[in-house]
Each structure stands twice: as structure tokens, then as C-alpha cells.
């Protein structure tokens, strides 16, 4: 199978899966089998592309022309490879988790849930494979729209409000800023292709470049740079698997991935370096890192705290892209993978607490470690990885981001990164520590008879796998590092 065919099949797999999921909707076991098989097939197809990309290849497929001169183009480069691998692997894990969660929690409309989930993965892979800005934009918007039914899954008033903020903000930023920036880029350069070294250099004045940078960074609302971050906490009304895979991995990473991609392949790091708006965007990202962490500390709802933590962590990646050095961009790319494994673990745990103990607030989680030791231990691992402590993967991305900040001569950003790590400790670690060492509350809640009572086994399996992933990534960051190095090779 040629890499080109594999790319098309990887894109087609979730769509075929969607159709089959809808057709098998009346038979839940068959339906979940379809989801799992689709996820595995997609992962294998994506993984089969790795050797090609490792060898420096960039397979390219034109799907057809959307507008005259503007094709829907797939082109796989290192950054997209990492994003696609992470998203498709974690889809398998999330699918296993979903089976336990959705049944354990007696959710409604499960067929619709699995079907839109597959569409969302289709568009996430579309974002990862996009070979030009137009394709990226199309996949990005399909992702926004296809995840709306998932966010609003519960059909309650709260879900309606959450969905409104979610779709409203994402559509507003993308149409009002990003679309204008893309059309402007097209007019100025006559191309929308992702080219190593960028396409804007020499085509637009630094002033126009600065305006475009602002339009792109805020226009890619999925990157959740403040003040356009509100959609992410709003999305937490969704069932936990959605928060886990989509709002810790696929959707949010599609945002920061787009930011990095635009920085590297549209602006080019050399051109980006000289832009007046560059430092401002760095400050915007730094402010988001710190402010979101501070807000996270005030949240007692576990998912809300994790959401603000995600907002903060996403800006690490934006910061890495805006610092515009090879090392900082490498750090940004690695953080896409590292944060994905850490944060999805935390969300899996949050969902497990909900299913097994019906607890949503952090203050209710005292002593939970005695009842759910595996889950709480996984939460600890996820937290440590997010904080960036060894022996967990999160260390590496923070390491390279800090190195990049030093290389860019931005001591202040190193301080911001360190400060943020301290804040992470402050708002994440108390949860597992209290879980293990505090006495449980008087009110034992659901199933609280002092014995071990974990969530359904698929949930426990999934969160163990993703926690293990954090550990594995500490010992094997090499492939990711080498892969990202190829972004600047040509």
C-alpha cells in the first residue's frame, strides 16, 4: 500500500465507521465493536505512514479542487504525523473507556454519540493531514460543527447554553478573524500551501504580517488564547469521554496544531521572529498560562478545573510557536503529545469518579483513594506529567520550551513556565494527595462501604493505558524529537 493510499484510507475509515455505527445502532455490542475496529484500523493506517515520514517523505494527495486554483490537499509532514498518531491512538483508548462510561452511566442516544464521535475523528485527521490552509480551515470547521451535538448531548438547558457558547465562539473567531486572514494570505501570496520556510516572507510588509499574526492566533479559537477561551469550560457539559478525547486532545490540539503549523509553514520562523506582533502574542500566551492556572485553582468542579488547566497548557504550545526558534517549536510539537496523554488520563479519572462514586466536585474526593486506588494513582501520574516532573513525558516538552525561551533570549518566559509549574502543583496535586491521605467524608455516597469499588473495567483499563503512556513517553521521547527536527530540514 502506498503512503498516499494509506492517507486516504485513514481519512475514509472513520466515515465508513460512522455509516456502520448508524446502521448497527439497534445492536449496542455490534455497534461498539464497529467503533473499536474502526479506531484500530485508523490507527494502524496512520502508524503505517510513520516510516515514510521518519525517512523524510511527505506524501501528498490532491482530493479535488474546491475553488479554481485551490485544491483540497492532503500532505503529511512531521507535526501532522504526531498529531494524527496521538489522536488515532487515543481514540482506541477512549472507545474502550466510552463503552464502560456510557453504559455505566446509562447515557441516552448512544448511537448518535458514537456516530458524531467518528465524524469528529474524521475531521481531526483531516486537520492533521491538511496540506494547505483551505483544507485545514474546512476540516477545522467540520470539527467545530460535528462536536456540537456531542457537547450538547444531554439536551438539557445547561447543555444548550454550553453548546451555544461553544459553537458561537468557535464560529465567531474562525469566521471573523481566521477566514479574513486566509483570504488575505491568498490575495497577498497567491498560494495557501504549507511550505517549509513560510509563504508570507517577502510578500507582505512586516506591518501586514503583524496584523495577520494577530488574526491567525485569535482566529484559531480552538487554541483558546484568552479572551477567547470561554468555549472550553462551556464544553464540559459534555459526557466525559467527549471532554477527554475531544476537549483534551482532538479539538484543542487541532487548534494549537494549526497555530504551530501557521507559524512554521505560513509565516516561517525567520519571518515570524522579526514581526512586531510576535512579542505581544507571546505575552498573550504567557498571560493565558498564568491567568488560566489561577482560575483553575478557584474551581471546585473537577472537570472545570481540568478545563482551565487545559486552557493554560494550550498556551504553552502557542508560546512555543510564537517564540519562533527551532527548539521552542520542537517543544511545542512535543507538548501536543505529552499534554494529550496526561490530560486525557485526568479526564478519564474524573469520569471514573463520576461513574463509580457519583462525585463531580473536588471537595467530595477526600479519601477517594481508598475506594478507587487505581484511578487515583493514575490521577497522580497524570498530574505529575502535566506538572512536568520526571519520570513522566511532560518533562521533555517543558524542557524544550524553556530551552527555546532561553535561546530566544526571553528570560521572562522561563520564569512564566516555572511559575506555571508551581501553580500546576498547587491545583493538581492536592487532589490525589487528599484522596489517599485524608479520611473520607461522613457521607459515603454511592457504593461507599469502605471496600474497593472501581469504575467498570473498560474505564480502568483505558485510564491505566493512558497513564502508562505518560511513563513510556518519558523513556522514549526520541522518535518525536527526531520527527519534529525534520520540520526544519528542507
Amino acid at each position, binding site marked *: 500500500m502506498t503512503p498516499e493510499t494509506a492517507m486516504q484510507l485513514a481519512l475514509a475509515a472513520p466515515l465508513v465507521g460512522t455509516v456502520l455505527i448508524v446502521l448497527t445502532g439497534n445492536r449496542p455490542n455490534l455497534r461498539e465493536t464497529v467503533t473499536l475496529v474502526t479506531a484500530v484500523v485508523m490507527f494502524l493506517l496512520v502508524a503505517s505512514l510513520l516510516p515514510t515520514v521518519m525517512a523524510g517523505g511527505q506524501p501528498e494527495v490532491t482530493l*479535488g*479542487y*474546491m*475553488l*479554481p486554483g485551490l485544491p*483540497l490537499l492532503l500532505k503529511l509532514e512531521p507535526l501532522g504525523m504526531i498529531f494524527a498518531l496521538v489522536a488515532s491512538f487515543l481514540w482506541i483508548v477512549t472507545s474502550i473507556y466510552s463503552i464502560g462510561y456510557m453504559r455505566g452511566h446509562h447515557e441516552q442516544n448512544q448511537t448518535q454519540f458514537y456516530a458524531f464521535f467518528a465524524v469528529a475523528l474524521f475531521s481531526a485527521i483531516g486537520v492533521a493531514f491538511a496540506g494547505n490552509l483551505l483544507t485545514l*480551515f*474546512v476540516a477545522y*470547521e*467540520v470539527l467545530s*460543527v460535528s462536536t456540537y451535538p456531542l457537547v*450538547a448531548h444531554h*439536551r438539557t*438547558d445547561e*447543555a*444548550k447554553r454550553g453548546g*451555544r457558547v461553544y*459553537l*458561537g465562539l468557535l*464560529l*465567531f473567531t474562525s*469566521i*471573523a478573524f481566521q*477566514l*479574513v486572514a486566509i*483570504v*488575505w494570505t*491568498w*490575495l497577498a501570496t497567491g498560494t495557501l500551501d504549507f511550505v517549509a520556510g513560510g509563504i508570507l516572507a517577502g510578500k507582505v510588509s512586516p506591518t501586514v504580517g503583524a496584523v495577520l499574526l494577530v488574526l491567525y492566533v485569535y482566529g484559531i479559537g480552538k487554541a483558546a488564547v484568552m479572551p477567547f477561551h470561554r468555549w472550553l469550560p462551556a464544553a464540559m457539559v459534555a459526557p466525559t469521554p467527549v471532554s477527554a478525547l475531544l476537549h483534551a486532545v482532538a479539538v484543542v490540539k487541532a487548534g494549537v496544531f494549526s497555530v504551530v503549523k501557521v507559524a512554521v509553514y505560513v509565516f516561517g520562523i525567520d519571518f515570524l521572529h522579526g514581526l512586531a506582533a510576535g512579542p505581544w502574542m507571546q505575552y498573550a500566551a504567557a498571560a493565558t498560562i498564568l491567568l488560566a492556572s489561577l482560575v483553575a485553582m478557584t474551581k471546585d468542579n473537577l472537570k472545570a478545573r481540568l478545563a482551565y488547566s487545559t486552557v493554560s497548557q494550550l498556551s504553552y504550545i502557542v508560546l512555543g510557536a510564537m517564540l519562533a526558534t527551532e527548539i521552542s517549536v520542537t517543544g511545542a510539537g512535543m507538548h501536543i503529545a505529552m499534554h494529550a496523554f496526561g490530560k486525557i488520563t485526568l479526564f478519564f479519572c474524573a469520569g471514573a469518579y463520576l461513574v463509580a462514586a457519583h462525585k463531580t466536585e473536588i471537595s467530595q474526593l477526600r479519601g477517594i483513594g481508598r475506594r478507587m486506588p487505581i484511578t487515583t494513582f493514575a490521577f497522580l501520574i497524570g498530574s505529575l506529567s502535566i506538572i512536568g516532573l520526571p519520570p513522566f513525558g511532560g518533562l521533555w516538552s517543558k524542557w524544550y520550551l524553556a530551552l527555546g525561551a532561553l535561546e530566544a533570549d526571553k528570560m521572562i518566559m522561563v520564569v512564566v513556565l516555572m511559575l506555571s509549574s508551581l501553580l500546576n502543583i498547587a491545583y493538581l496535586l492536592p487532589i490525589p494527595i487528599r484522596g489517599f491521605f485524608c479520611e473520607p467524608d461522613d457521607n459515603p455516597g454511592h457504593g461507599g462501604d469502605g471496600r474497593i469499588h472501581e469504575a467498570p473495567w473498560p474505564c480502568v483499563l483505558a485510564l491505566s493505558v493512558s497513564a502508562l503512556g505518560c511513563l513510556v513517553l518519558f523513556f522514549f521521547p526520541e522518535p518525536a524529537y527526531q520527527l519534529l527536527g525534520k520540520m526544519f530540514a528542507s
Partner: protein
Amino acid sequence: MISVHFPVLLVVVPLMAAPVCLLLRRLPTATWVVATAVSWLCLFFAVSLLLRVLDGGPISYLLGNWAAPWGIEYRVDVANAFVLVIVASIGAIITPYTRQSVLRELSPRRIYLFYVMFCLNLSGLLGISVTGDAFNLFVFLEISALSGYALISMGRDRRALTATYRYVVMGTVGATFYVIGLGLLYMMTGTLNMADLAARIPAVSHTRTIHAALAFLTVGIGLKVAMFPLHTWLPNAYTWAPSAVTAFLASTATKVAVYVLVRVFFTIFGKADVFELFPVRDTLMGLAIIAMFAASFVAIYQDNVKRMLAYSSIAQVGYMILGISFATVTGLTGGIIHLFNHALMKCALFLAIGCVFYRVGSLNIRDYAGLGQRMPLTMAAFVTAGLSLIGVPATVGFVSKWYLVQAALERDLWLIAALVVASSLLAVIYIWRVVEIAYFRAPPEGAPAVAEAPVSLLVPTWIMALASVYFGIDATHTVDIAHKAATALLGGGS
């Protein structure tokens, strides 16, 4: 070869079908068969004309073989061939829908009248598009307008009558203005043939008479277009007309009127420097922007879904007028492509509303509660077309927006570009109001059970909804045609 006569057959066949329907008045089904056959035949004529024009350049057909400019010339170039295809295909796809929809909404004795008027209307709209003679255009304008009034007045609700009356008054004023403008042109040039007018106007373009003519023509056509602030007839007319009529007129009548405006500006006045002396286009740009915002805001506050979409149409016409007012190839391409795109999506939306009306019998947004579960296919079509109206990528609305924003940026009109994207976001609000009620609100206690709409209504609805996605993903052909049309129109009006 019969194909030489396609331009005139486009008009004659539906025109002759009208009396045939009248003769068949005791057999309502037969009238439907005739109308369906005729509309598909017209589509065949229109498509083959478009293919020929794309291949071999403009076609000139002399009616009765009387030489132009004395005889009437039918002149088909890319621009009007495209409009012909739009009108004919909407007609062809709607006729299967009309059968059950009309049966539900009209008294059985009137069904034959519906098809008589439908054929006349089709004939008029195709005639406006195909003719190269400015006065002949007026004749067809009246044929389509009069039959249009009749169609709207067939609505069951008695408010349809006052709505029609208002439309008659406004429409007649519009037609009169058009004739006055034409009379002034005739006075100055002595000709009514468009190409001939285009050649003769530059010599007299500095005169006040010509300026007055342009003003009369713009206002007259503006009334037909429902250009803000001449739109007041439209919301009521669309709201109270039968569902199928609204779907048909909303996606053809105003579009054809926009085409006439394009013809007048870029063919008849194409070679004259009158626009430098007389800032019609800048005025239109301002009005278009106001329409885009004002009508969208009004749409947000409507409780009648059909009325909401009617106001949305006024806003969308604003986009087309905006594209025209740029007077650049990109802008005009955007205007023409939006003509096609808006026809698709608005037709799909009105057809979906018609499906709901067929089952629920209400246009009020409150009665949409729970329809997401009870009429899933209809509401899915509504959402698809609604996303297109918003302009989400991979739908036709995105293509229109792309060219309009590009045209604005090309001329360094940053503010206009910002306003285009901002106004399109207003569509999110009014479409999502319906979505939230249909999917999130449970139907009231004791509401009668509602089934999915019948297949004959669903199929045309979905054809339109899918077309509004398909032509958004692969827009190369439609954009190419619009671009050719725009280039030809700006290239001196041939």
C-alpha cells in the same frame, strides 16, 4: 436542427403549457404531469444552451427572423445561460414537491390554477433571462409578476390577499419605473435592443436624461429585487404564500431581478462612463450593507419561521448587490455565484419549512419543539441548508463569502470585509434559534403525534440540501461559470 430554436422554446413551451393546464382543469393530476414535464424539458433546454455557450460563445437568436435591432433578439451568453439553468433546475426539482404540498394547502378546485400560473411564471422568468431586448424584458417581467401575484394569493390564510395586494402595488410601481427609464433611453437612443443601447449610450451619457433613466431603472428593478429599502412587500408575500410558491419564488424571482440589474449596469450602461458622474454603485454598496445587517437583525426577532427566512432573503440579496457594487471581476463573480448558491440553500430551507407545515400545519417557531426527534430527516435538511446560510466551509455559503471577502480586500475595503463576515454571523443566531427549539425543547403535552414528511416532499428537499453541500465542496465549475460571466460582463457588455 431543432436545437437552434432552444432559446425561444424555453419561453414558448411553458407559455403554451399554461392554456393546456387550463383545458385539463378537471384533471388536477394531469396538470401536474404537464407542469412537471414542461419544467424538466426547460431544464434540458437550459443546460444544453449553457453547454453550447460555454463551448462556442454567445448565441443570438432572431425572433421570427426579424433582424435586430428592429426585431426582437434573444441573446444567450454565459451570464444568462447560468441564470436560465438556475431557474429551470429549481422549477424542475420543485414540481415533484408541489403535488402533495399543494394538495394539502390549496382547495382542490384551485389546483389546476396553480399549475397554470406556475407555467406562466416559469415562462416569464425564463423569458426575462433569455431576451436581449429591453422592452421584451419588460413584457416578461409583467408576465412573471402577474402570475406571481396570483400564486401568492392562493395561500389559505386570508392574509395572503393583503400581502398580494401590497405586492401588486409595489410591483406595479417597480414595473412602471422600469418602463419610464426605458422610455427615456429610447428617447435618447432610438433603440430597445440591449447591445444596440450599449453602443449608443456613451455618446449621450453625460445628459441628465440618461442619468434619470438610470435612476428610474435602478429603483424599478430594485423594487423587484427587494433591495433595501424597497423590500417591504417581500416578507408578507413570502410568509403567506403556499409553501411551494415561496420556495420557488424565493429562489428564482429575486434572482432573476438581480440578473436584470447586472444586465442594466454592465451591458446596457457597460460602455458608458455614467457611473463616474452618478454614484449609483456606491449608493448600492451602502444600501447592501444596511440590508445585510438590518434584515438579519429583524430576522432574529421573528417568531414565524417563514417570515424569518424571508427577512434572511433580504439580507442575502444584500450580498448579491454588494458583489455587483464592487464592479470588479471578483466582486461580480461573488455576486453571481451567490445568486446560484443562495437559490440552492434558500430553496432547501423553504422546502424543509414546507415539509414541517405539511405535517404540523404551523409556521410558528414554538411548534417546532421536539421536531428534531420527530421529523429527523426534515430537520437534518434544515440544519444542513442552515449551515450553508451561515457560510460554514464545505457548503455553498462559504464559497460566496470567500469571493465577497476577497473582492473587498482586493479594493482595500477592510471595513466592508469585516462587515461581510460579521453579518454572516448573524445568520448563526437566527438559524440556531430554530435548531435549539427543534432539538432541545420537548413537544408540549398532548401535542398530536407527528410523522416524518412524505417521500415526495423529502426527496426534493434533500436534493437541494445536498446540492448546497456538493457545490460547496466542488465549486470549480460554478465559480468558473460565474467568473466567465463576470469577465464577459465587465469586458464591455457582449
